[in-house]
């Protein structure tokens, strides 16, 4: 089972879990803050809306199309 950190907290998830799912498993499910300051969460689940973009190991990535891996660092808050 991969263990990642989500906003600094450790989280153990089932193999094959997307980072989008991890956001709710280990937090409130939100992924980013919009330009006017609203918290947002994944919407389309399929790589279109870009609402799920988070920072993974220092890179901007889509949470819904990224699988959780051991040692991954996910940040949802700037």
């Amino acid at each position, binding site marked *: 089972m991969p263990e990642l950190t989500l906003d600094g907290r450790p989280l153990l998830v089932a193999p094959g879990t*997307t980072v989008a799912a991890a956001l709710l498993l280990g937090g409130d499910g939100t992924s980013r803050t919009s330009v006017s300051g609203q918290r947002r*969460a994944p919407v389309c689940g399929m790589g279109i809306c870009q609402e799920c973009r988070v920072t993974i190991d220092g890179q901007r990535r889509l949470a819904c199309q990224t699988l959780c891996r051991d040692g991954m660092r996910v940040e949802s808050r700037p």
Partner: protein
Amino acid sequence: MKVDILIIGAGPAGMAAALAAAPSGARIAVLDDNPAAGGQIWRDGPQAHLPPLARDYRQRLEAQANIEHLPATRVVALAGPKALLVEDPEQGRVIEYDRLILCTGARELLLPFPGWTLPGVTGAGGLQALIKGGMPVAGERIVIAGSGPLLLASAATARDNGATVLNIAEQAPWSKVAGFAAQLPRWPHKLLQSFGLFHPGYRANSHVFEALGEGRLEAVRLNIGGQLREVACERLACGFGLIPNLQLGQALGCHIDNGAIAVDAWQATSLADHYAAGESTGFGGSEKALVEGAIAGHAAVGERNAAQRLWPQRQRWHGFATALNAAFALRDEVKHLARPDTLICRCEDVPLAAVADHQGWSQAKMASRCGMGACQGRICGGAAQALFGWQPPVPRPPFSPARIDTLLQLGADAHSQA
């Protein structure tokens, strides 16, 4: 990298195309932006249950030595004649091809309504995809709204994973939904798949009015057959049917007709050596995608007899697609749910008031930044087309946000070709 046949999209259409073309010995690559093959309907994950047919296609794809599957790879830009710049988590690179098959599928049509940006609101197919990827919904109260058989599929996935589905609000009138259901015995397999999932909370002639909550969804106000009703819930999944993903076809210069990539009987587009199959040529479900993909695969390797043998089967699923699209056509009410302060562009937080008075998409974009954000107008452009009839402009690269080192490859490549 250079291949004989490059296939964009590893859903049912892309997999069928690859498997049909493979016996010719051609060198084939199938790229897809998801981590696993399967597309929308056969999406894998910890909470997904793949049907045997999906497993069979995936195993055969893996087993073919001349098919290379490139997962987690997206198309970033055109890189010259018959060449595309692509990016995966590790690298950016140019793939040259001799023939291309576009199997880019469809996305959900998301229409704006007050509160649709609240966390807890997702697409209908979106909810299904997120659950399959492991998102927990056990114990949640869920409202599903929008249009089409996907609402029922999404409800079934939510229920199977421990959620309570309170309501399913279908915007189409009863007469049309019932008429569609009555035709379903013509496609017996589909009967099981969609209307076998009938739910006691299902209401036609109904739609979402607004989503309510402070910082996250707390309740939904529904219009059920003309009566407003407030329902407390943790989640709202709302999608108004599917729209073909055209961006790449459009950028390549393929002729677009009626919101879909136009193809002839061989699934060939208006551009020589470029084919298209599946939902990108029009919404119609996985059986249509499979048969169109196989025809495109055969045609792309010159096996016209094999392709032609599949025409009657395609005809049958085109009949289903026509019935589906007629039954779930959008009613005017659902195009007027947004209020002046409702955000239309979720990327740049642009409200309806800032775009509604413009003549067309380009003007609105210039004045308000609507459509200039990360999704490149894939969400708000689809909505603006439904709401105002604005034609989406030809997309500009990068087609999706890309890393600088990937884009630099394009410069290097352009220089070496110059």
